[in-house]
Structure formats: C-alpha cells, structure tokens
C-alpha cells in the first residue's frame, strides 16, 4: 500500500471505502479518490500504453489534464483517470494494449520503432501502390485510435441536455482568484456562474496548504448565490457564448462579462527517458500526496527550473517521501526562501544542473543529474541516483486557450520562460496564475532537450502522440520549419491533451533547429474544445420530435406497414396494397392524410397575398370553392403543391405536401413581411387531422354519417362545406385526390379517431401510401420532390394550365416563367406504359438515339389497369402520344410507350360525377 498517513486537507473520506474493477482485478479506494489515485495507492504504476510505440506510461499531471491515464469506464472510452472520481462497482479497463497492459505485443513498434517508424512514415509508405490502400486502411484503422466504442448502439446512447444560462458574470476557474472574483461580484448583486474542472473549487490552494481558506471561500460563494459548477470545464469561446460541459449537461453560458482565472499548468522537461512511468510533474506528485494521501514514490528526485519545483519537493518531504536530490537549473537556485528551506532540510541541491537521463525497466529506476550548457548537453560531472519517482518542474504556462479564442493576445515572457497574457479583450478580466500572480524568482529556461550525450533513450516532446525531439528535428530538416507546419507533419500537440504539455517543448525544439527565438516561433492556434468531450454531449437532445398522426395507434392495430416519410410515421399499406387500391376503385377506401400541411391565411389582404404567391388566381375564388395550386420560386421552379380553399372573404385554407408545411409557411410569412400585406399565416398542421374518403361508394358512406346534402348538385367537385360527420365537426373538401369521387375530411386532431372509426365501420377500407401512389399515378398526378427536382417548372411538368401569364397581378416566379415560355422546354414529364409489362426501377435511364436523355421518376403496376404505368422525363420531341421509348434499367432494355393523358378517367368524368 502506498497510502500515506492522514494529510491535512485530504479529499478522501477514509470512513467510506469503495471497490471497483480494473481489468478484472479488484481495486480498493476511498470516496474522494480518483481512478488514478486509487490505482496508485494499490501500487500500480503502468496505467496505459502509448499511442504509437505502445510504451508503458504512468501518471503525469494528477489533475485530469494529461492523456497518460485514459481508460474505458463502464464502456465509455477516453475517460481521464486522474480526474474521474472512483465510484463503487465501476468497471475500468485499459486502452491501446493487447493482450494486456503488462504484455502488449505492439510494444514491438517501440523496439524497432526508431529506425522503422520515423516521422512521416505513414504518409510516405502507405501511398504505394495505390490499389493496396483499402488493405492498408483496414490495418491502420485497427492500429489507430484509442479505445473502442461499444458495439451495440443501445450501449452507445446516453441522454444529454442543453441548458442555456444567462448571467451577469461568468468566472472560469475556481481557484482562490476565481472564487474571490465571484464573491466580490455576487456581493454587489451580480448573478454569477463559476465553473471549475475539479471535483471541488479551490484549485492549487487545495494542494498547497490553503485548503481551509479555499473551502471557506467556496462556501461563502455558494451562500451568496454563486452557481458553482464543478467537474465542468469551459470548452471554448464562441462569440461570447461559453459552453461548459458537466457530465450529461452542456451549459451554454452567456454573460456580458468574464473573469478568466484558468490558472497555469506546470510544464514537463525534455530528456531521454522522460516518458517512463514514475516521471511526473512535481505538482502532480504533490497533488497525489496532498489530496489523496498517496505516496507517488518512496525515493524521489526532483528536477526544477523554478521555485515551484522546490516547494513541491519540500511538500513531498513533509508528506513522508524521501527526497534524495534536487537539481535546479538556476545557478543560484532562485536565491530565495525555497532554496534556503531545501538546504535547511538537508536535501542535496545541485545548482545549475538538470535531469539528463532517466532509465529503468518499464519504470524509472535511475536518473542522472548534471550541469548543462544552453544546448542541453551535459557539461560537468554527472551524478546518478536510484529512485522510483522523478518529479519535474519546467515552469508554469498560464492556460491561455480561452483568452486567445476570445481575441486576447499572448507574448513570450523570458522571466517565466513561458507565454504570458499581453492583451485582454474588452469585457474580460484575468486573475490569479493566468495573470502571472504568485510567480516566485525568475525561472531558468529549460533547454529544448537535456542529455548526457550517450546514445539511446527516446526524448519525447509530446507523450500523447509519441512525438520525439528527433521527429520534430526531422520535420524541420525536411522543410516543415514553422511550428504550424511541423505540427501538421508530426501531429505534435494534436493529441487528447490539446498540446498543453507539448506546445512549449515542441516550440523550443523548432526554435533550436531553426535558430529563431521562441517569440518568433510563437504558439499554434488555440482551438476549442479545451478538453476532449464526447460528441454526444455536444449533440444534445434532438429538438425536432418525430411526428405521428393522431391515427397512428389505429394504423398499428390494423397491422399497417409503418415507415418514416420525412418527420412523419406513415402507413405504407395494411398488408395488401393491390387489394386496397382495387377496393378504392370498386367500393370505397379511406386514407389518413393528416401529414399534409394545413395553413390558415387570414386577413383583408389574404387573397392578394395568395395571388402574388401562386401562378394562378386565388382571389377570384368564391367562399366554399377550392382550387389546385402549385407554388413556384422566383426562379420559376416548383417548390410545393396543394389545394387552396376559400372559407370566407378573408380566410383561406391552404394544404401543402407532407414535407412542405414548414417551408411553405415560412415562404408565405416572408413574402407577407416583405410586402407588408395585412394578412397572417398560421400553421394548423398538427392540430388538424385529415382523411380522404374515396371511391364509388364514398358519397353513400358520407351521406349516412351526416345531415349535409352530399349530392353532386349540392356538393360538387372542388366545393367545400363545414358539416358534422358522425358527431365530429369537420371541413369537407371535395377534391380529386386519388381519381375517384373523393372527400377530404379535416377535423380537430383530438376527434380524428371517432371519425376514422365511423368511416371504417360504414365500409370504407383503410388504404396506405403505396396504393395511393398507384391510384394517383393512374391519373398522372405529379409528386413534388419525387417526379420533380430543383429544375422543374410547372410548364415542363405538364402543369402549364396552372400558370396564368395573362393575369394582371405580378407573382413570385412570373418573370422566370415568362422567360421560360419564350422557348420550348428541352425535357418534359410524360406518362408511359411498357407493352411487355416490365416494371422499370425508379431512376432508370431513358435512352434517345442511344444516349441517356431522361429518367423514370415513378413506376408502378396498376392492378386495375393490369399493366405497368409510370412517369418519366423525356426529350420534348418524344412527348407525343404513343411515341416509343427505350428505358435502360440495370443492364436490361425495356421498350415503353408514351402517354400524355391520364391512364384512368382522362376526362375526369368519374371525378365530377
């Protein structure tokens, strides 16, 4: 056990032990532990295998920032073990190693890797021969990536929520500076949100002994009503909106003012062996000891360039860990208090020296400390130490990401050997370590890579992506000599920790290789998200609900084949599409058309508005009359079709296609606003149900259910009446939907069930969408979107009669249609039959003189007509009755004959009877 004696301010609750499974083995811990602290307490050091070379890796940062301890937790990959709290019964598994974390066969990549896997290896190797790429891809896909998603969809799904939060002030970072800012603002009455990545606010103060102060401030903030979000990283800056990710919730926080107190992250040092398990940031080692009472090692060596490393060394010693030596790169070791304390404590302090090599088998066992020159090479006597922990401190890099995204600026600061805030955008303030507060004596600039000069041992600038110093040097040598280019070539800084521990180290290597200074080399662009976030958390909950007709349950009870059509669930048939179609033509049928768009256009100018929107006249409609209309765009292209019924002088009832309701409502509303006409459009689609009763016996059925006179004289074709049917108030539209005598009955959605039941009980056979398509195709009715596309005008779709270019009123699309009318269309939509009875696939090609000249858009077999019927686009010269067509369909050629008139009831005698 590596658990220390109780530490003041520790976060674990020793009264509440817990256990969880790691790779099938039982791990014990306490409430308050993270996965990593519990694993460390149990003595485990190897936590993961690296991305490319499969090298063993241990903990680095101890605070949820590094990618060294990514696990799959309860099936969710990519969880950061040093931030994720341990929970009773959780199942934790390693990633990127096979068959086990201890024995990983891909480790071979590391043994041979130096020579065989140089930077750019993949780009250069797997492009030849081209035809083998699919094979390469399969293998590489398997080797690439970290973690696996659960195979079954249900296990990948989880509920997430968006939450919009508007406040006066957002404080990012809950250290002492952030807490103080939040409290001050809240005391002045501001509505404040504070977010922090850790499980509790307090930041570094929780570690460095000021835990009581931090916890008192957090309590005070909550008391003042500050909304404190924990385990909640701010992901980025989007024009003032800051998404804060907290578990299943994405808080979209918008505030006019922001305080950034994002703190600073200690940087690693670069030397051969710097990725061995047991090499940690000194702050991470100290955090493990202070918060979780875990000994990160028994014998520690500390290498530092600043006071922070010395302080961490003292704290480790105080926690009961033997510190055998400290190397401080500064010749005077800062010259201040910390160095004096170190000496007083009797810890050997090597001034002007640093770590030049770490070695050991799968964990650090020996380290070499030596004085180095500016190029990083050892210049003096080296000293070897045996240890099991090497704590490094490479300077504190303020976390600038959010500030830079918001338009702030950073500049290199030689005093801290890091980039510091240079310019803060308006409405924003920086505080705490981000603002450079708490910095001790000036730091020594670490060399790009410190080395004892001996061969062997990889020195990494990026642990996430397994990028070594040599890789970056090769990239520069190959001409990728700017930081942005070498980043793209080597993938340095592109791993899960977003470059927070590799930007500065790789920039130093580029600076050394190019001879430029760090200010010139600069930083790569800071992009959101700050931390890796599951796509599910960003996706949120879909806002558009799938839509079901109020009759949906009845369709299911009737055994309907249900399918999605756009947003709507629709009944395609009830098991016998042919029988259903025949029933409509010989007897009576009823179809649920509640999915049609239903709009009310009302106002003194409603008629004029519709006149300007449809190519035909609508204002001349008399109340109680119906007209078919096709809506066009300004380009003269068909956008939707439907019926327009005038209910009274100022009210029109407009139906649209199933998918078109929203777009048509938007279009009508937009033109209304544009022209400022006194009319309003209201979408009634989901409040009103509709069903179409059709067939020779439709009139008889309807008459039996209502007092209204339904005779052809009283309720003729294209007339509308309000009536009570089977006790349900309804609007009856007599229209020619499927070619038989038909009545479209619109009623309140809540009363659709009883009306449907009454129609079915009276003998109307339910029919679905598939028989409807056959019936409508017999009449050559065009389906907008199926038979038309974005190039189709009413004229070439055979709907020219609906375009009234002689109408005095201007209308949308008029000019385009006028221009189009001046020349004959190239292609037109016509009906066809196949004498041989073959049924071409929709989309099959129409051939003319041996070349593709059109396509089949609809084709069905009509059970009534006992032949194949369809619609196809053909060259204009073929648009004549009985013209011969040749259709090429998946290798076969089908002979077809053009029909320009409806296949059934071409003169509409049945319809009007």
């Amino acid at each position, binding site marked *: 056990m590596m658990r220390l004696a109780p530490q003041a301010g520790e976060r674990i609750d020793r009264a509440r032990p817990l256990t969880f499974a790691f790779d099938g083995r039982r791990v014990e811990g306490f409430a308050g532990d993270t996965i990593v602290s519990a694993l460390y307490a149990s003595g485990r050091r190897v936590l993961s295998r690296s991305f490319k070379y499969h090298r063993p890796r241990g903990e680095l940062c101890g605070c949820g920032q590094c990618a060294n301890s990514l696990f799959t937790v309860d099936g969710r990959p990519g969880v950061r073990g040093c931030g994720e709290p341990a929970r009773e019964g959780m199942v934790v598994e390693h990633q990127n190693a096979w068959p086990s974390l201890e024995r990983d066969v891909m480790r071979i990549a590391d043994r041979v890797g130096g020579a065989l896997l140089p930077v750019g290896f993949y780009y250069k190797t797997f492009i030849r021969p081209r035809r083998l790429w699919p094979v390469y891809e399969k293998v590489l896909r398997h080797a690439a990536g970290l973690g696996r998603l659960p195979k079954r969809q249900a296990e990948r799904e989880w509920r997430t929520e968006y939450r919009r939060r508007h406040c006066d002030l957002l404080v990012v970072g809950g250290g002492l500076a952030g807490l103080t800012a939040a409290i001050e603002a809240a005391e002045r009455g501001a509505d404040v949100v504070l977010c922090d990545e850790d499980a509790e606010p307090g930041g570094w103060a929780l570690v460095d002994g000021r835990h009581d102060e931090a916890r008192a401030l957090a309590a005070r903030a909550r008391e003042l009503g500050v909304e404190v979000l924990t385990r909640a990283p701010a992901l980025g800056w989007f*024009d003032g909106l800051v998404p804060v990710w907290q578990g299943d919730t994405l808080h979209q926080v*918008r505030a006019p003012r922001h305080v950034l107190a994002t703190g600073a992250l200690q940087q690693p040092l670069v030397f051969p062996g710097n990725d061995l398990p047991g090499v940690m940031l000194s702050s991470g080692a100290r955090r493990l000891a202070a918060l979780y009472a875990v000994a990160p090692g028994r014998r520690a060596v500390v290498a530092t360039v600043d006071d922070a490393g010395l302080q961490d060394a003292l704290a480790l010693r105080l926690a009961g860990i033997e510190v055998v030596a400290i190397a401080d790169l500064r010749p005077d070791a800062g010259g201040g208090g910390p160095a004096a304390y170190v000496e007083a404590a009797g810890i050997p302090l090597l001034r002007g020296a640093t770590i030049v090599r770490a070695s050991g088998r799968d964990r650090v066992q020996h380290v070499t400390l030596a004085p180095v020159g500016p190029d990083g090479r050892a210049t003096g006597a080296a000293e070897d130490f045996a240890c099991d922990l090497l704590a490094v401190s490479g300077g504190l890099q303020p976390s600038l990401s959010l500030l830079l995204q918001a338009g702030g600026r950073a500049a290199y600061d030689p005093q801290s050997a890091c980039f510091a805030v240079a310019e803060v955008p308006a409405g924003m303030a920086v505080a705490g370590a981000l603002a450079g507060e708490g910095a001790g004596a000036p730091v020594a600039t670490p060399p790009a890579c410190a080395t004892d000069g001996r061969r062997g041992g990889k020195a990494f600038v990026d642990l996430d992506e397994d990028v070594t110093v040599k890789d970056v040097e090769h990239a520069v040598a190959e001409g990728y000599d700017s930081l942005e280019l070498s980043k793209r070539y080597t993938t340095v800084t592109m791993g899960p920790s977003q470059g927070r521990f590799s930007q500065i180290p790789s920039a130093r290597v580029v600076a050394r290789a190019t001879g430029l200074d760090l200010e010139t080399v600069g930083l790569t662009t800071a992009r959101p998200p700050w931390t890796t976030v599951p796509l599910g958390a960003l996706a949120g909950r879909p806002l558009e609900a799938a839509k079901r007709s109020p009759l949906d349950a009845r369709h299911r009870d009737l055994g309907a084949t249900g399918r999605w059509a756009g947003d709507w669930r629709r009944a395609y048939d009830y098991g016998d599409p042919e029988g259903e179609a025949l029933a409509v033509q010989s007897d009576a049928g009823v179809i649920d058309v509640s999915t049609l768009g239903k709009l009310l256009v009302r106002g003194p100018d409603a008629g004029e508005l519709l006149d300007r929107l449809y190519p035909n006249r609508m204002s001349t409609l008399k109340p109680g009359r119906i007209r078919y209309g096709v809506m066009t765009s300004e380009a003269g292209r068909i956008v939707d079709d439907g019926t327009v019924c005038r209910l009274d002088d100022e009210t029109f009832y407009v139906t649209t296609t199933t998918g078109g309701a929203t777009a048509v409502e938007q279009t009508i*509303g937009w033109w*209304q*606003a*544009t022209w400022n006409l006194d009319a309003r459009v209201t979408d009634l689609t989901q409040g009103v149900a509709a069903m179409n009763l059709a067939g020779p016996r439709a009139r008889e059925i309807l008459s039996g259910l209502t007092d209204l006179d339904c005779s052809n004289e009283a309720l003729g074709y294209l007339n509308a009446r309000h009536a009570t049917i089977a006790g349900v108030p309804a609007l009856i539209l007599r229209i020619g939907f499927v070619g038989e005598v038909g009545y479209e009955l619109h009623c309140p959605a809540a009363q659709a069930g009883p009306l449907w039941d009454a129609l079915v009980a009276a003998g109307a056979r339910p029919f679905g969408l598939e028989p409807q398509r056959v019936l409508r195709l017999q009449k050559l009715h065009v389906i907008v979107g199926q038979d038309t596309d974005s190039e189709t005008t009413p004229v070439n779709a055979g709907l020219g009669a609906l375009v009234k270019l002689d109408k005095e009123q201007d209308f949308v699309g008029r*000019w385009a249609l006028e*221009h189009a009318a001046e020349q004959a269309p190239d292609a037109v939509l016509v009906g066809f039959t196949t004498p041989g009875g073959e049924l071409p696939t929709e989309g099959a090609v129409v051939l003319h003189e041996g070349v593709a000249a059109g396509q089949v858009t609809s084709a069905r077999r009509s059970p009534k007509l006992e032949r194949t019927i369809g619609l196809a686009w053909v060259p204009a010269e073929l648009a004549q009755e009985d013209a011969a067509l040749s259709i090429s369909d998946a290798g076969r050629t089908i002979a077809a004959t053009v029909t320009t008139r409806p296949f059934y009831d071409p003169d509409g005698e049945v319809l009007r009877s």
Partner: protein
Amino acid sequence: MSFLLTCPNCGPREVTDFGFGGEVTSRPAERPSRRELNAYVYFRDNVAGVQREWWQHRSGCRQWFLAERDTRTNVVAWTARPDEAPAAGGDRSA
C-alpha cells in the same frame, strides 16, 4: 457562431432560436432581362461588414423581421419589423 438577436415581438433570444433568411435583396420593379433575373435570383453581395438581412423567429412567434448585423463580428445594430425598420437602400418591396 453564437449571439443574441432581439425579436421585435419576443425580445432577446439565442440565435439558434431563429432562422436566417439571407441578405435583403432588391426585387426588380419592372420585368428584368434574363441576366438581371439571374443576378436577382442567384447572386448575393456576401459583404464582410454591416449588412441588412432577414431573420425569422422560428422557435418563437414565427415573425419575419429585419436586422442589421456586422458579418465579421456578429454585432447586431438593430432589429425591427419590416414596416418599422429604418429606411435604407435595398428595400425588397415589389
């Protein structure tokens, strides 16, 4: 992209509540030539700067309104119903 827009009926809301209707274009008053028609239907100025544009309060009252927005910064100078908008060029009235 994220900013607030003020619906003339409902007040300030997240931009995701709204549908974008594009920049305000000028509908020809007289029958245009083919070329003019093409320009009117398909071409937009796509300015990097302040432009007058259409928005609809899609997830709210469904009102169409005008806004003047800087496309570079997403700073919205004003929003107004078309009949209450400050006069400017680029009126779409027919």
